[in-house]
């Protein structure tokens, strides 16, 4: 459609950057499925190497990859932040990050090889801190902030804190530090990671995309302005205060849960106020994710109040189900759009339409696979052999996702090779 050169690299996120982070996340997802096969019901013991390995496969390998894919795509589009040389920037992050995650997972399973923690830290902490600071510095310098860009800034700040706390822990595990504050730091690390980073980034992006993608009324100003700050403030104050008063985390987790319940209910309400009556798979992924968040936070509060392990385990399954549902919703919006957009920008007027890149029925099938996966994990708490099916479905779910990426990439390359270009003839 447009000039032969298409968009310059600093005008839009290169398609390969977003694709490779999504692909990396999907590959870690396949690994996650394999780990469930391997560890079986040991994953339900939160202190076991099995649970630690699977948790970090999810939070680091899967979620962080997907969230960087979303950030590389969303920062220029919804915050107007341009990352210079995004391909080399992404590569500086991608390779040390992937290697670092694999080393960390190995370290959890070979605690006697403490050097593995050190090696993982050397790869993960500098690369992740560097990209976090880079994105933060761009966001800080923005003149016109939206609630989304402000929220992203706060979420990245939380990620920075998560990384510093993680560094303390790995230094303790390698013996470089005494680790006197290890239990306090550990609680702060996972609380800030799960709620300050993952939830806050999803909330910030949703302020923009729920209204934009689904034509809903905007979130109330009060929520947009104060929810991210309140959530982060609560977690930050607790992180500091809990060094003297560790029990404070119980109250903080309950308050966090209440805030997130409020957010989930409000967003579900917004989605019910859509002007368009037809709901595609991405709307259902959002609805599923928010319902999972609602249930996860409810079970978390019950666990905190009663100490019943079953509720803790339920929250541990439901919370990743929430985060993954939202990731899948974003994935099925981003990949077809990017493929179409980049081909159009390069002048291929026969570029495939978005429904030709990923058919809506394909996304709907993934929704059923994902839902069944979550249900089997929940039932496995009562009947452990079901974990075989959960593992198989996890592999199917991420394999499905990976195939969509490969398919979209092949379509993109095929159009570039064979497609006819349109001349705009602009001076």
């Amino acid at each position, binding site marked *: *459609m447009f000039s032969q050169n298409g*968009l*310059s690299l600093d005008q839009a996120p290169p398609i390969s950057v977003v694709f490779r982070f999504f692909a990396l996340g999907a590959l870690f997802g396949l690994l996650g499925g394999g780990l469930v096969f391997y560890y079986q019901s040991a994953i339900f013991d939160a202190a076991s190497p099995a649970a630690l390995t699977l948790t970090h496969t999810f939070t680091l390998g899967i979620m962080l990859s997907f969230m960087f894919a979303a950030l590389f795509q969303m920062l220029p589009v*919804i915050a107007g932040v341009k990352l210079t040389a995004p391909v080399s920037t992404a590569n500086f992050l991608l390779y040390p990050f992937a290697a670092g995650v694999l080393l960390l997972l190995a370290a959890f399973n070979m605690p006697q090889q403490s050097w593995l923690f050190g090696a993982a830290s050397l790869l993960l902490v500098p690369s992740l801190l560097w990209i976090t600071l880079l994105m933060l510095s761009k966001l800080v310098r923005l003149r016109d902030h939206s609630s989304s860009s402000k929220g992203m800034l706060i979420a990245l700040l939380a990620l920075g804190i998560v990384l510093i706390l993680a560094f303390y822990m790995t230094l303790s595990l390698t013996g470089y530090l005494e680790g006197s504050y290890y239990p306090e730091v550990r609680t702060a690390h996972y609380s800030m990671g799960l709620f300050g980073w993952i939830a806050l980034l999803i909330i910030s992006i949703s302020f923009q*995309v729920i209204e934009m993608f689904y*034509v809903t009324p905007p979130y109330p100003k009060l929520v947009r302005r104060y929810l991210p700050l309140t959530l982060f403030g609560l977690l930050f104050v607790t992180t500091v205060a809990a060094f003297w008063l560790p029990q404070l985390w119980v109250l903080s987790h309950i308050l966090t849960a209440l805030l997130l319940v409020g957010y989930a209910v409000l967003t579900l309400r917004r989605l019910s106020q859509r002007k368009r009556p037809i709901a595609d798979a991405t709307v259902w992924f959002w609805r599923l994710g928010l319902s999972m968040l609602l249930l996860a936070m409810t079970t978390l509060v019950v666990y905190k109040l009663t100490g019943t392990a079953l509720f803790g385990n339920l929250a541990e399954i439901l919370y990743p189900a929430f985060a993954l549902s939202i990731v899948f919703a974003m994935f099925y919006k981003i990949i077809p759009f990017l493929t179409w*957009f980049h081909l159009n920008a390069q002048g291929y007027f026969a570029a495939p339409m978005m429904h030709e890149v990923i058919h809506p029925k394909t996304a709907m099938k993934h929704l059923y696979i994902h839902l069944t996966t979550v249900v089997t994990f929940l039932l496995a708490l009562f009947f452990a052999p079901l974990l075989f099916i959960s593992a198989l479905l996890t592999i199917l779910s991420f394999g499905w996702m990976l195939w969509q990426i490969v398919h979209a990439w092949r379509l993109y390359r095929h159009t570039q090779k064979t497609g006819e270009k349109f001349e705009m003839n602009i001076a």
Partner: protein
Amino acid sequence: MREIGIDTRALEHPEPLVQATKILQGLTEDSYLYMLHRKKPIPLLDLAGEQGFQVLSREDAQGDWHILIAKDPDIDLEALLRV
């Protein structure tokens, strides 16, 4: 000067961008796109600016965005803006 107007305020993403790019393909020297949108469409503005189009975007008091895009660099888009 011929106005090609589209009101995309009730359309779900990315339909506004799809419609606007289709119009830009056929835009002539004596026509311009006048688009109404709920949000500032950064990808469209980037794309049009990159291709040498003249672009003007302005938010009105209701929070809607008025986007004007012309092929002719001499068209006074400010004069055509209804904000």
